[in-house]
Structure formats: structure tokens, C-alpha cells
């Protein structure tokens, strides 16, 4: 067990491009030539990257910010990997930035800030929708999610 942990510590490193954790740098996702380089999904933490990756719908690349703006924890823009994200958007020919940040006050404050910084770079900026989850019964949903789902309503057919 100790040896395994030591091996992990010795081999796992942070990807210098996206901030993911992997045994190689660049990580397997960044090295995969079949992925769509025009789409960049920005997430708060590595666990969020893997949550999106597990779902299997996204075939672009990722960028891990390393947190979110938080007044309580004193995390400002300088503490996050925002400069690296902007540099990647310009250098890698990204056409769409998907802001995959949490539906929390801090997550969306960070998303609005990033959208502002991305303005003028000629990329489409999108964010995940909020609404009724698959398998969700309306009477079990919280008021905030229901209200978000109502605001995001769309015509049928």
C-alpha cells in the first residue's frame, strides 16, 4: 500500500497544458490528436474534468482553473489559471469555450468574469444549462432548479 502510494506520488503530475492529473505531461487527453481542438471546456477542478469525461458527450479539450473566485477564501483572479486559459484560446485556435462551472454563487461569478475576459477574442462562449435532471420528478426539485428550468423552457417540436 505504501509502495503504491509512493509510486503514485512519484509518477502522477499536473499537465502543463490543461492542469489535469496524469502519469504523463501533456496528459492523455491533451496528447490525443483525435480530440476537437476547437472546443475548450473550462472546469474548476480535476474531478469536474473527469465528471464531464465520464459522461462521454464532450470530445474537445479541457482547462482546469484550479478553483473559483471566492471572497471567503481570498481567491482572486490571480490565484486561478486564467492567464494560461486566455493564452491557450489565442494559441490553439479555439472557437468555442464551454464554461463548465458549478451552479453556485462562486461558480457563476467566476463564469461571468471569464466571459468578460474572453470578450473580444473572437470565440463563442457558452455555459452548461440548468434545469430538470434526467430521472428527476418535479416535486422533488428545489425551487431554484425549478425556476432555472422554467426560464430555460423551449418550444416542443
Amino acid at each position, binding site marked *: 500500500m505504501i509502495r503504491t502510494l509512493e509510486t503514485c506520488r512519484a509518477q502522477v503530475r499536473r499537465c502543463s497544458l490543461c492542469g489535469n492529473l496524469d502519469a504523463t505531461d501533456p496528459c492523455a487527453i491533451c496528447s490525443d490528436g483525435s480530440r476537437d481542438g476547437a472546443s475548450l471546456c473550462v472546469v474548476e477542478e480535476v474531478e469536474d474534468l473527469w465528471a464531464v469525461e465520464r459522461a462521454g458527450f464532450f470530445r474537445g479539450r479541457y482547462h482546469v482553473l484550479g478553483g473559483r473566485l471566492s471572497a471567503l477564501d481570498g481567491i482572486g483572479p490571480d490565484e486561478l489559471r486564467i492567464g494560461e486559459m486566455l493564452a491557450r484560446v489565442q494559441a490553439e485556435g479555439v472557437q468555442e469555450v464551454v464554461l463548465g462551472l458549478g451552479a453556485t*454563487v462562486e461558480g457563476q*461569478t467566476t463564469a*461571468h468574469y471569464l466571459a468578460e475576459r474572453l470578450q473580444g477574442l473572437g470565440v463563442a462562449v457558452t455555459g452548461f444549462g440548468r434545469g430538470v435532471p434526467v430521472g428527476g420528478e418535479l416535486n422533488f426539485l428545489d425551487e431554484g432548479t425549478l*425556476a432555472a428550468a422554467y426560464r430555460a423552457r423551449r418550444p416542443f417540436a
Partner: protein
Amino acid sequence: MEWHDEGFVLSRRRHGEGSLVVNAFTFEHGRHAGLVQGGGSRAQAHLWQPGNRLDLVWHARTAEHLGSLKGEPIRLHAADLLDAPLELAGLSAAMALLDAAMAERDPHPVLYAATLRLIDALGEDEAWLADYVRFELVLLAEAGFGLALDRCAVSGATEGLTYVSPRTGAAVAETAAGDWAPRLLKLPRFLLDGSRPDRAEVVDGLRLTGHFLDQRLFDAVNRPPPQARLRLLDLLGPPAPDAPTQPAD
């Protein structure tokens, strides 16, 4: 020990697997912390977002303990504002200021009323920006650093008040300001007559309150003002000019 009160969620920290330590600003008990069992769970996470107004029950064996907190929604403001950058910044700034500036377990019903007025006003109509500046004035007053904006500190005049002394926090009439005018803080008209301000006047108001928040609350304890307040200023206008450094009287 147990109390039942209403309050706004100010901030929360993870505690263990799924619990949170929450700071709330309550009507009768001021800023008060408590442990929320399962507060980080999928079922409860939406409830404990900053800015949400909840019906709270706090329970502890003795008054000194952290105690446990339970909440039921009164109005979940955070979810309503997630898509509105300016309003979200206003909500975050107000909650961060209350969290950083107010003493724990010290009731401030007047400040609670000002907070309630502000949060209820948050919406697409930017009239809430005036409420935000007034909220900061009330916060300063409740912290013991109220500004005297009703008469001129130099001449005693109650008309033509256009400046505030950065040293004393007292209003100064335009006629009495003389050569000191460039070193004084602007006193926006809406704070005197209740008119609807434009963004430039709101920024003047925020520079006025910001000067005293920095000088009297945050510099005194060697802490920076909350990032959320800086973000609100960023969204509203260009960077502030250098703050006045010379006393006016």
C-alpha cells in the same frame, strides 16, 4: 440553548464529508455560525448559497458552542441571480461585507432591514444600486463609523452639500469647500434627496463608502476589502482615481 430566527446565508465552509459550517446574518442574533449536518449534500446544497434568505433554527448545549443549524427556505435569491452578472456581484459584495465586517452574535436589526431592502430590490431595474450604496452607509453606521451627511461641517449649512471630508466623514457644502474641493470625496445627490442615480453617481457613492470601509474597517485590521466588492466596482465603471490623502478640516 435554542433559537428560531430568519437570516441570510453569508458564507459556508466544508466540514468533513458532507457537512458545512455556515455563517448567517440573522435578524435578532446578528452574524451567527452553526454546523449544518449534510449541508453539502445534493438535497441541501442549493439552500446554503450566499444571499439565500432562510428560516433558521440553531441548537447547542451551551451558548459558547458552535451549535447546529437547520434551515428552511424563505426566498432563494441566489438561484434567481446566477445569470445576472451585475446583480450577482451586488449580492456577493453585500454578503461578503457582512461576513467580513460585522462582529459575531451582535444583533443589528437596522442593518438587517437595509440588507432585506437591498436583496429584495435586486433585479434588472438598476434602482437597487442606490439601495446598495445606502446599505454600505448603514453598515458603516452600525459598525460605529457613521457619516454625518445632514449639514456642512464648516459652515453648518444644510443646502448645497456636495462633498465629504475623507478624514471626518462629515459633509461639506460647495461654497465652503474652497481650495480643498479636489481633496474631498464627492457626495452624490441621491444620498440626500432620494433621486434615482445614474451609474456615475453610484460609482461616486461607492468610492465614498469604500474610502471609509477601507480606512476604518479593513485597514485597521490589516485586511483587504472583499474581492466581491472590487468585482462590483469593476463591473460598474472605470478604476477609481487616487484616494484623497489630505485632511479637509
